[in-house]
Each structure stands twice: as structure tokens, then as C-alpha cells.
């Protein structure tokens, strides 16, 4: 069924509202591909619908966040599409409207991976699991520690937990029951006076065991720190202690993280 372009053009509003049938969408997207003015109009209309939608924001339940972060850590990302790859039709508005290439992604995928890994946090390394073994020497100067970290990251049962620290900042723990180890990182922790330090604990049913003092932050990031000797029921705690550390926690934990099983 052929229709005049002018007729097709009136579909712009319905298209921007996702108020079209699949057949209409395909037809309109073919039209869009050759009509820069139409693409421009759709951009403007999509901004309007986006604002309409975003203005209905509600607060998500807090526990949804950890689930989302964990799901991401376990999900492979799509590499950027090559610049000259044809847009595949019928793959939804994202692929059609967004097109083939991110401006920020013109560098070859491997180079971008290398950059990412060089700058990586542990979570990044997890997301790029396959690269961990090859790249861990870049992450950590200390080879032995690097091996320990790599063992956790590549463990089949590795789990990531993230939480806010009560006094500010975010902590991330990757733990493997299989390896009896965990890797701790934190970002944006409150700077402490010289007489105080952060101390990490394994807190289990039988009490708390000191797991080490946090090193000073580098560029706002603390760690990665490997903690071995993880036992069933242990959770990870963080407290503020006198600079030299304590044998047992002397203040309330500002962070508790763990599966507890």
C-alpha cells in the first residue's frame, strides 16, 4: 500500500508516542531513513514525550537497586556497532532512532576494552569476566594479590554486593564462598582525621575477626582489598577505629554487607 509522503509525515506524532502498529512503524522508519527533516522532527517530539514520561517519576523501592546492579554485573554488554554497519530494520525504536554508532564509540572495540580495563574498578572487571585473567596485572601491581583477586572474580559463584556506607560513600564486595575469599572496594568514603582509620571485619555467628585496615584512597577509590578466610555466615563490616586498628570493633559498624549464609 503506497501513500503519499505528506500522508506518511502526519504519522510523526503517533510514531513518537509509540501509537502505531508494527507495519506502520516499519513503513515510517523507512521513510525516516531518507528524510532528515522528519528525523529532526521526531527528535523534538521524542523530547516532549520523554519529558511527559519523566515528570511522572515515583520513588522505586530501595531493594530494587541492588538487584539491578547485580543483574548488570552478570550481563555482557553489546560492543559498539561498526560505523558502516547497516541499521537492522525491525529491531525496535532504540536501534532505529539511535542508529548504528555512538560518537563516543568510534575507537575500535578492543582499544576501548583496553582503556576500560586499564581504568577499571573491580566491578568492571567482573562485567568483562573473560578479560580478567589477562588483564589483572594491570589492575594490581602486586602479583600474589592479583592472583587472589582474579581467583575470586573468576569463581563460578562470585556475587557482588553494593551498599552505601552510613557515613558517606559506597562499598562493593565481590565474594566467593567457593574461594572462601572476598574482594572489597569503596568509593567516596568520608576522609578521617589522622588518628582514625577504617577497619574491615568478618562478622560471623562466632564473633568478629579483624580483616585488615583500609588503605588510603587513591583518586577517591579504596582497594581492591582481598580478604581470605571467609566462613559460612560471615558478613563484612566496616568500623572507624584508632589509627593502628583494634582487635575487636570499638564502634558501631557503618557498613554491613553479606549474604549471611
Amino acid at each position, binding site marked *: 500500500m503506497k501513500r503519499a509522503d505528506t500522508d506518511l509525515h502526519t504519522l510523526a506524532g503517533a510514531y513518537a508516542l509509540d501509537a502505531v502498529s508494527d507495519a506502520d512503524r516499519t513503513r515510517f522508519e523507512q521513510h525516516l531513513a531518507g528524510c532528515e527533516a522528519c528525523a529532526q522532527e521526531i527528535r523534538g517530539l521524542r523530547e516532549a514525550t520523554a519529558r511527559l514520561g519523566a515528570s511522572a517519576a515515583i520513588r522505586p523501592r530501595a531493594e530494587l537497586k541492588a538487584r539491578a546492579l547485580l543483574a548488570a554485573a552478570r550481563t555482557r*554488554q553489546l560492543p559498539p556497532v561498526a560505523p558502516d554497519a547497516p541499521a537492522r530494520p525491525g529491531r525496535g525504536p532504540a536501534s532505529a532512532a539511535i542508529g548504528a554508532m555512538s560518537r563516543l564509540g568510534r575507537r575500535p572495540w578492543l582499544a576501548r576494552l583496553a582503556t576500560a580495563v586499564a581504568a577499571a574498578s573491580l566491578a568492571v572487571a567482573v562485567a568483562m569476566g573473560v578479560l580478567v585473567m589477562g588483564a589483572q596485572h594491570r589492575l594490581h601491581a602486586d602479583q600474589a594479590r592479583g592472583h587472589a583477586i582474579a581467583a575470586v572474580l573468576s569463581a563460578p559463584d562470585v556475587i557482588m554486593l553494593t551498599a552505601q556506607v552510613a557515613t558517606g560513600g559506597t562499598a562493593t564486595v565481590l565474594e566467593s564462598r567457593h574461594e572462601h575469599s572476598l574482594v572489597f572496594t569503596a568509593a567516596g568514603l568520608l576522609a578521617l582525621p589522622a588518628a582514625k582509620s577504617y577497619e574491615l571485619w568478618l562478622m560471623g555467628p562466632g564473633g568478629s575477626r579483624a580483616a585488615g585496615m583500609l588503605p588510603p584512597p587513591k583518586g577517591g577509590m579504596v582497594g581492591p582489598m582481598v580478604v581470605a578466610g571467609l566462613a559460612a555466615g560471615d558478613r563484612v563490616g566496616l568500623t572507624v577505629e584508632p589509627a593502628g586498628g583494634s582487635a575487636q570493633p570499638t564502634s558501631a559498624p557503618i557498613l554491613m554487607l553479606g549474604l549471611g549464609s
Partner: protein
Amino acid sequence: MTDSQGLPRRNPAAEPGGDAGLAVLLARVARGDQPAFEEVYDRMAGPVLGMVRGVLRDLAQSEEVMQEVLLELWRTASRFDVAKGSALSWVMTLAHRRAVDRVRAEQKLAERELRAASAQIDYDDVTEAVEATLERERVRRCLGSLTDLQRESVTLAYYGSYTYSEVSGLLGVAIGTVKTRMRDGLIRLRDCLGVE
């Protein structure tokens, strides 16, 4: 980022430079940057959830879709192209399409028709517990500047997930008229909101 009450602190659209910030975050996410993803979550989970709930009504289902959308952002962040539109628009477009697909797959037209009458007033209903009242007020005011038929066509399509031909049937207005009203209504909304 959240304030002390756990409310989203920013509305990406309302905050000056906020959308550029979101675009930068997406670029970092595309490189596997997990803290950047966490920030994207903090910014966008609320707007996505609110919009999706406006479409699906059911909160549990909406939470599911919101999680799928956020994971999709993580997965496909490398596909975001600033030249093709704002970051907010990319996210909300992806999310809206998901929500609409879900409704159309699961709900028969007859069921959706039951909700039709309330679709336009439900806009008020779904905007409870929103953070940026300023932005919400602006959108509400701009919606108010549309003609009744424009506003009904736009909200039935956007929150009711009806196609233009369904809207035509629901409102008893010719298809061509509905298409035109949707486009004119969005153009007026766009101009009123000051989208360039």
C-alpha cells in the same frame, strides 16, 4: 544520588546541563563502568518506573519492566548516540516502548478499553510521590495548553498505549484527525516545554 529521604535529587530534564551529565554517564556505562551505571540507576529508575506505571498501572509488573529497562541500558549503552537525541529521550523512549509492548502482548483490547475513560485523568493519579514538582507542574501546565482533543489523543496514546486507530475508535474521531491532533499536540507540548 539521593537526598536524605531517598528521593531522586535531580530531574535530568529540569537540571541545567543534567542531560549532558546523563550522556556522559551512559558513555562510561558503555565502557563497563559500574559506578556510572549506579548513577544512571539513581537518576533514571524513578522517572522510568513512574512512566511505566502510568502505562501498566500494576506496580509489581512496572518494577519488573523498570529492571528490564535498566539492564537494557547497561547492555546497550554503546548504542546511545548523542547526535540522535538527548540521553533522557533515549532512555524514556526505550522504556516506553517496552511498557507498551508489554501491555499490547498481555492485555486484550477489550480490557484496555475499560481503562480508556480514566486514561486522561490518571495522569494526575500516577504523579504521586514525585520529586521535582517544578518540572511536573510545568508539564501539567503545558498539557493544559493543548486543546481537549489534542490532550486526549496524546495521553490515550502515551499512557493508554493505544494506537492512533484505536484512539480514533475510542474518541469517535476520524483517523486522519487523530493523527494530526497527536502531532499538533506534541508540537505544542514540545514548544511549551522549551525543547530545542
